[in-house]
Every structure is written in structure tokens, then in C-alpha cells.
């Protein structure tokens, strides 16, 4: 495999056209925050953002920057730092179309795409307003039951791009994801996976017995760029913790559109990110 390694995260962000369907993971999986900033710099618009199964700062910033038209998610939250202010504002003024889901339903839609099947049945949800507000979901009789047995059918979710941050990749484009197995489903479901990594390493991760089990093969990968501290200010695996002071300052700034814009000016389009991440 050649040509998967990009020189910059901005070059990776340039692969994502306006209107793309992107999939992003929960914070524990590894969030490509540097790529998120590059997407905002490039001014991407009209994204359909699927969260597997929830999002936080990444989603809030993309929403705040006006990059997201529709958000399919089970939750948007900054966790102990509180509600996601730009998400809440987007809901409140109707500028964001929300498709509320429940975590396993998004997993099932992604797994359906991974398996190349048009839909997957799933238990639960019947009688909830989550289901009542999803006209793209169906309820049907379980064909293997002789009793009345309704079950929800969830259409496959097929993102154009999955966006993740991981620990390392080799020059072939194989990516070490360790125990974050949801990346396999996300990558299988998506047309291609764009990856930032803490480090690009020599060798072949698939040929090393200690890494192969936790490696996403390059055949799923559309591009890789090195981004040290690339999940900042979020925590990344066991590698580094959340930058709590920065998160608090984000929440304070993002309460207003103007505050959010000045945060972007400072940390996304301006030069303050590198300094803050040190």
C-alpha cells in the first residue's frame, strides 16, 4: 500500500467534502480532535454526523462551527463539564436536525453496514419516543415467532468517512487500535476511515504478533496523518488525561456564539493550539 500517509492533518481534512456522512466515536475510543480543528479550518459544511454512540467536544465544536446539518446520536455531552452548549443552542434554534437514537441502535446500524446487510433487528425501544420520532426505523413482526412479537428494524448506517485518533500506524496504513474494537465495526461500515495517530512507526503492525490482534488493517483506511496529542484537550486511552482547565474554559466560552467564535479564532484558526497542548 502506498500513499496513505499524509504530511498534515489539514491534508487529511481536505478529503472530506461538504455534505459527507461522517462517523465519530465516543471519547473513550479516541477522538480525532486535531482533525476536527482542521475540518473547521477548511470550513466543511452540511455534514451528516453519526456518533458511535455518543459525542462530546468534537460534536459540539463541529455543530458550533456550522459544519453539521444533521446529527444522529444517542447523546451529546461534555460529561463532568456539563451539557454541550453549541449542541443545545443548535437544538434550541432549530438550526441542527437531531436524530435521537439509543446507543445499541447505532451500534446495530453500524454493524449492519459492516455486514453488508440492509438492516438489523434489535430488541427494546418499543413504546419510547426515541422510536416514535424515527421515521427511518420500522417495527415488524418477528418472522420466527408464532406469537405476536414486534421488533424494531434498524437500517444500515453507511458513513462515507469514519474519523478516529489512534496510538500508532505503520507506513502501510495499518492502525493500532488496541482494545477499542468498535473501530473495527466503524471502519467496516464506512467507505473509508481517516486516522490521526500519535506516531507513525516503522515495520508492519499486522506481522507483529503482539500488535496484530489490535490492528485495523490498511484496507479500510483512506488516509493517516501524524498528530501528536491529537485528541487534545480530550483524554486519550491511557496515554494522557483530559486537559480539565481547557475544557472548563471551552464550556465558559461556548455559552455564546461570540464566545465560541473567539475560542475558534484562538485555538482552531489561530496559533494558540500548539502552545496550549504543550
Amino acid at each position: 500500500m502506498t500513499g496513505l500517509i499524509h504530511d498534515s492533518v489539514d491534508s487529511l481534512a481536505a478529503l472530506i467534502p461538504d455534505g459527507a456522512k461522517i462517523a465519530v466515536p465516543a471519547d473513550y475510543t479516541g477522538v480525532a480532535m486535531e482533525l476536527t480543528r482542521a475540518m473547521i479550518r477548511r470550513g466543511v459544511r452540511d455534514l451528516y454526523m453519526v456518533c458511535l454512540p455518543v459525542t462530546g467536544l468534537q460534536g459540539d465544536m463541529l455543530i458550533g462551527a456550522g459544519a453539521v446539518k444533521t446529527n444522529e446520536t444517542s447523546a451529546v455531552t461534555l460529561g463532568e463539564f456539563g451539557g454541550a452548549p453549541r449542541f443545545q443552542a443548535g437544538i434550541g434554534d432549530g438550526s441542527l436536525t437531531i436524530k435521537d437514537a439509543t446507543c445499541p441502535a447505532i451500534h446495530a446500524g453500524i454493524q449492519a453496514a459492516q455486514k453488508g446487510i440492509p438492516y438489523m433487528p434489535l430488541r427494546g425501544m418499543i413504546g419510547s419516543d426515541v422510536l416514535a420520532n424515527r421515521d427511518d426505523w420500522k417495527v415488524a413482526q418477528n418472522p420466527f415467532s408464532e406469537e405476536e412479537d414486534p421488533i424494531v428494524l434498524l437500517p444500515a448506517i453507511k458513513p462515507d468517512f469514519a474519523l478516529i485518533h489512534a496510538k500508532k500506524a505503520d507506513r502501510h496504513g495499518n492502525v493500532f487500535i488496541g482494545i477499542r474494537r468498535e473501530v473495527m465495526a466503524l471502519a467496516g461500515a464506512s467507505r473509508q476511515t481517516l486516522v490521526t495517530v500519535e506516531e507513525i512507526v516503522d515495520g508492519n503492525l499486522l506481522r507483529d504478533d503482539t500488535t496484530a490482534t489490535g490492528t485495523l488493517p490498511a484496507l479500510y483506511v483512506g488516509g493517516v496523518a501524524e498528530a501528536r496529542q491529537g485528541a487534545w484537550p480530550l483524554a486519550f486511552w491511557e496515554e494522557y488525561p483530559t486537559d480539565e482547565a481547557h475544557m472548563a474554559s471551552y464550556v465558559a466560552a461556548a455559552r455564546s456564539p461570540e464566545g465560541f467564535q473567539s475560542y475558534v479564532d484562538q485555538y482552531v484558526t489561530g496559533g494558540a493550539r500548539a502552545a496550549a497542548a504543550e
Partner: protein
Amino acid sequence: MTDFPSPDEIRTEELLITIIARLVEGCRLVSCGASSPIPGGGCLLARQQSGGAMQVNVLGSRLNNLMTNGGVELFDWAAQGRLDAFFLGGGQIDGQANINLVGVGDYPQAKIRWPGSFGSAYLYFLVPRVILFREEHTRRVFVDKVDFISTPGTSDPEVYRTGGPYALVSPLCQMGFDKVRKKFHLVSVHPGHTVEEVLDNTGFAIDVPDHVPETVLPDRATLNIIRQQISLEIAETYPRFAAKVFPEAVNAA
């Protein structure tokens, strides 16, 4: 004879951990969700008391993580029938045990928007003992009717449902839920609180028996386990919670 400390020796968090441990007793596998230090502590206490028969998954923990198949594995456990207990909160919980994690006002343009339903619309159907837990016991939380049903408390008989509300635990009391009558009932009131206080702060009707017992406190042995051992186990995942509630243990460690 069992040695009980006096109520004022016991922190609310310690009492809640004790109650939760009782509620998950006998389970084979329990898990708590994100941002759940007290449920986590209750599960870890129950595991300690089970003599190794119970397995506990603490989301976000490295030492108490039992998931090696990605974030979906917790949900797969539930559908496989392996997960015996889980915890749900809610911006609103109503008298029919419906839960609202989405918002207040008309959907989708809610006046107040919360994060979203997470796994509730699924786990509530499939986990036999779902314990409703809130640290705020007010009429704002415990409402007559939720504005949005993230997940319903009960289902029609044709709906596949092996799980549902098992108990409600708050800083004031413990309730049970009758799935046939679709109604909560008061099980016990915590020391220092009263039935009237519960009723005043609950926006839905509940059944109150003639005699409402006081919640049994942890005995001294249990309290020691919580303070000396469970405190540190919680601290791995929730350092700020542990430092606040168990400063002695955290500082000594």
C-alpha cells in the same frame, strides 16, 4: 451482635452505596454506566460481599473492565441475558417509571435539552434489575408525566421485555415498583427523613404502606469495607468523587 454506627456517623453516599449493594445481591454480572460513582461503589461492595460469585464491570475503569469486544459488548450482554443489573438516572422520571433523558418542552426544539437517551431505550427492556438512581429528589425530577419518553417503565404484554424498573433510590428513600399496577411504593425512608418529606418532593403518586420502615444502615463492618477498600476501588475511576467523599482513605493511599 451486629454493631451499627449511629446515623450521623454515616455519609449519605455511604448509605446509598450500601442500599445499592443490597439491591444487586445475588447477581452474577452487574455493570454501572458512565458518571456513576455511587452505583459503581455499590456494585464493588456487593462483589466484595459475594465472595467472588459476582462480576462487576465499571465503565471507564481499567481494573474493573470486563469488556474486550468494543462498546457494544455491554448491550450484547444484556440481550444475551448475562447482565443482571444496571442503573439509570433521568432528567425526569415519572410515576409509571418512564424516563426522560432528552429534554423539557416540545420535541425536538426542547426548552431545556439534556444529552440524550444513551442506552436507556434498550437496557431498560433487557436488564432484570434496573435500579433508578438520582441524587436529586425533587418534584422537578420526579414528575407526574415525563415530557419525552426516552424509555418506558412498562410495556404491553406482546413486547419482548425481560427487564425493567426494580427499585428507585434517592437521598431520601428507597422505592419499589409494581409492574402490574404501574406504580411506585415506598420501601423505606432514610434516617433523618420522613414520609412527608418524600411525598412533598415527589411529583407522582406513590403507594405508602401503613408502616414505612427506616432504611437499615450499614453495619460497622460494612462501613469499614466501604471506607477502607471500596473507596480506593472507586478512586481509580472517580478520583474527584473519592477525594471528596473519602478524603481519609484517598490521602492515606
